[in-house]
Each structure stands twice: as structure tokens, then as C-alpha cells.
């Protein structure tokens, strides 16, 4: 490990206001590049999503009426689980190779760098999940007219899921087998997103206004955008320094 050049005071002083944005985009770019190198891991959540959705017609009933009734909830639960599955690796590799410690030493606030990592994670899991969802919706006989709302709700919701999930991932990154623990910590916090996300799709199906639900999802996203980075930074510090 190269002894953190960034930590030397000379460079810390040159961290101008612009430095924050540069660090943010650099971290984002770096994470995207690294994730693109492991394409298999990128596809995995999507395959998982499709696979879980496949289980339900087999497990419950292939009848279109039954499936249409449960489709909004199924799509949301499956997307939520797929997002959860990918969270464990969010900080894991950086923790193992020590680059997380470098981030800790960086002059830029850890919260911003953590946020950049979460954004990268969302762009490569939440976003594809939201885009694939209508396809699986067709397979579940999701009634027409709710597809746009499904994508929009998933886009808003999965961003909150990534942010809140990152807190759990940061808390458990130092624990050897933290995967199950991570889901125990995070799933209860996902419930409001699930409720309003499913609510939006169901409201669209019965032709009610969806603005209220989407506004709630937006509010949840705003709140987690405001608070989660600090919790992520604090959790990362705890996981690294003990």
C-alpha cells in the first residue's frame, strides 16, 4: 500500500472547494470502472430478480388474474431482495484491499466519497432493476397503464434502498460473514419504501392518482440522501478503526 500521499498537509491545503466535486466524480468513475470489470457480478442481481419472479407463477398459480393481483408486490419484493443481495459487495472489496482506508485519510469528507460509491452502486444495480421490471411485469400480467409508474417508483425507491442499505453494508463490512446480518439490519428499514412503492403501482392499476405515493417516495429519498451519507461515513470509520 502506498503510504497515503493524500494525507500530506501540502496536498490537503490545496483541496479547494472544487476538490470535493473532483473527488466525488473520481470515486464514482473508479467504482464504475471496477464494477464494469466484473460484469458477471453486475448481471447477477438481474438474473436473481428474474429467477425469483419465475418462482412465483410456479409456486402459486399461472393464472393471469391471480398473477395480476400480486404482481406489484412481487416485483417490488423481488427487486428489493435483488438490491439487498448486491449490497454486501458494496464496500467489501475496498475493505479487503485497503482502499477504504485511503478514503478515510483523504482530505475530502468521507460522506461524499461514500455517497459516490452508493451512486455508482445504484447506477449499476437499482437503475437496471428498474428498467428490467416492466419486462417481468409483462410476464406477471401486470395490468396496462401501470408500467411507467412501476419504473418511476422503482427508480425513486431503489435509490433510497441503496442509500439505506449502504449504512448496513458499512456497519457489517468488518464482520467476516456479515451477509445474513446485513439483511437482518436493513430489511426492517426497507418497509416504508416497499409500502409506498407497491402503493404507487396499485394506485396506478385502479386508476387513482399516484402523485401522493411518488411524492412520499421522493421524500424518503430526500431524507435518506440528507442523512444516510453521514451514517455511512460514521459506520465506515467504526468498521475500519474498530
Amino acid at each position, binding site marked *: 500500500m502506498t503510504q497515503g500521499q493524500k494525507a500530506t498537509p501540502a496536498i490537503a491545503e490545496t483541496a479547494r472547494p472544487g476538490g470535493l466535486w473532483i473527488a466525488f466524480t473520481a470515486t464514482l468513475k473508479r467504482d464504475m470502472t471496477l464494477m464494469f470489470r466484473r460484469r458477471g457480478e453486475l448481471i447477477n442481481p438481474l438474473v436473481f430478480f428474474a429467477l425469483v419472479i419465475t418462482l412465483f407463477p410456479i409456486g402459486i398459480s399461472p393464472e393471469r388474474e391471480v398473477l395480476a393481483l400480486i404482481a406489484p408486490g412481487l416485483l417490488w419484493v423481488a427487486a428489493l431482495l435483488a438490491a439487498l443481495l448486491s449490497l454486501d459487495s458494496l464496500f467489501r472489496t475496498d475493505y479487503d484491499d485497503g482502499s477504504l482506508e485511503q478514503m478515510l485519510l483523504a482530505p475530502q469528507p468521507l460522506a461524499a466519497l461514500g455517497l459516490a460509491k452508493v451512486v455508482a452502486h445504484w447506477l449499476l444495480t437499482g437503475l437496471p432493476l428498474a428498467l428490467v421490471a416492466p419486462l417481468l411485469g409483462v410476464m406477471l400480467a401486470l395490468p396496462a397503464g401501470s408500467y411507467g409508474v412501476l419504473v418511476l417508483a422503482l427508480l425513486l425507491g431503489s435509490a433510497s434502498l441503496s442509500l439505506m442499505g449502504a*449504512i448496513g453494508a458499512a*456497519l*457489517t463490512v*468488518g*464482520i467476516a460473514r*456479515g451477509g445474513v*446480518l446485513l439483511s*437482518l*439490519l436493513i*430489511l*426492517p*428499514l426497507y*418497509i*416504508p419504501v416497499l*409500502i*409506498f412503492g407497491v*402503493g404507487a403501482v396499485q394506485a396506478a392499476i385502479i386508476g387513482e392518482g399516484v402523485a401522493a405515493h411518488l411524492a*412520499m417516495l421522493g421524500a*424518503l429519498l430526500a*431524507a435518506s440522501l440528507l*442523512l444516510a451519507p453521514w*451514517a455511512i461515513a*460514521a*459506520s465506515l470509520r*467504526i*468498521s475500519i*478503526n*474498530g
Partner: protein
Amino acid sequence: MWTFIHKWGSPKWFYAMSARLQPWCWAAALMLIALGTVWGLGFAPADYQQGNSFRIIYVHVPAAFLAQSVFVSMAAASLVFMVWKIKVADMAATVMAPFGAVMTFVALFSGAVWGVPTWGTWWMWDARLTSMLILLFLYLGVIALRGAFASRDGGSKAASVLAMVGVINIPIIKYSVDWWFTLHQPSTFSVTSRPAMPVEMWLPLLIMVLGFYCFFIALTLMRTRSEILRREINKRWVIDLAREMR
């Protein structure tokens, strides 16, 4: 003011002072719960709709109150620990978590049992029961996270962060669940408005609630004292204390 906080933040001082406070809390808890039990079980009139099954309220509501209050106290203690690095606060938070989980379970169990004569089923996805179930998972998460860390310090800090994250989420979860499951009885007891129940029904309930709170304080003091001894076992004052005990 600051010296006061720092005195209570010292484990030794806390140990000595809580020893004086503790018997009073136990006495108050015992008296209030005994009074509430006799009154609630034997003397409060039966509900005109639910008959005598409504007497479950005298354990369900105090337990539900406590389940939420314990989480809030735990988060407050966690905040004190994280901001001012006061170790006693973390020790208190450590012992509060299992008790909170027990109270949440009591609220869930009594609610489920109450459901049989009221709804005709053991489990109803009713707003309050569902929130309680989620609260139980939050407690289990905090306890599990603390236990998963190899170092006590790391576990304490991680559990503190999770408790604070949880306490921010509890109202959000509660309101979203309330919004979703409209099929529930209106809240039986609120602090701000006078309940619709007659006095001879809600007065024993109030006594029970107070008794449960005293029980919580007494138990927390007692277990925090044990936790202090456990963590400070190599400190001079604990060794001296052990000499005196002998």
C-alpha cells in the same frame, strides 16, 4: 451542569449513586404494578363490547409503550455515548436492548392473544401489531450487530449508530404501516387527549404504565451496575470494592 453530567458519566459515581436510587425504583415498580394488577384484574369494570378480555389491555399497552420508549432511551444513550464518549451511557444501552426486545415480544404476544376473542384469529396484520413486529426485528438487529463484533468498542459504536438510524426510521415505519393497514382499532390511550374510557378503566392503566416504567428504570440501573463491574473489573476501585465485600 457540566460537572453534574461528568459525575454521572463516571462509572464509579454512577455505581455508587444508582445503589441509592435503585431500591426506591424497585419499591415504586412493585407497588404500582401490584396496585394496577389488583385494580385492573379485579375491580375495573368489564368492557361493554369486549367483556373481560379487555383486561389484557393492562399488560398490552404498558408493554407496547415501553417497547417504543426503551428504543428511544437506547438511542438517546447511544447518542450520549457517541457524542460525549460517556461509557456508562453505552453500558446502559447494552442492557436496554434485550429488555426492549422482551417488552416488544410481550406486546406482540398479548396483542395476538387479545386478537382471538376480538378478531377471532391469532394473528391479524393490524397496523400496531405489524409495527411491533418490525420493532422486534430492529431490536434483534441491534443485539445481533453488537454481538457480531470481535471488539467490544467496535460493537458498541456500531450498535449505537444502528440504534440512532433505527430511531429515525421508527416514526417513518409507524406512519407508513398505519397508512397501509387501515384495518385497526383507534389508539386506546394517548397522552395528550383524555381517553374515551371511563376513569375506573384508564386509571389502573395509567398506574400500570407508570409501574412498567419504574420497572424499566430499576432493571436498567441494576443491570448497568453489573455491566460496570464486568467492564471495569481490573480498575482499582472495583478491586477495592471487592475487598470490602469480602
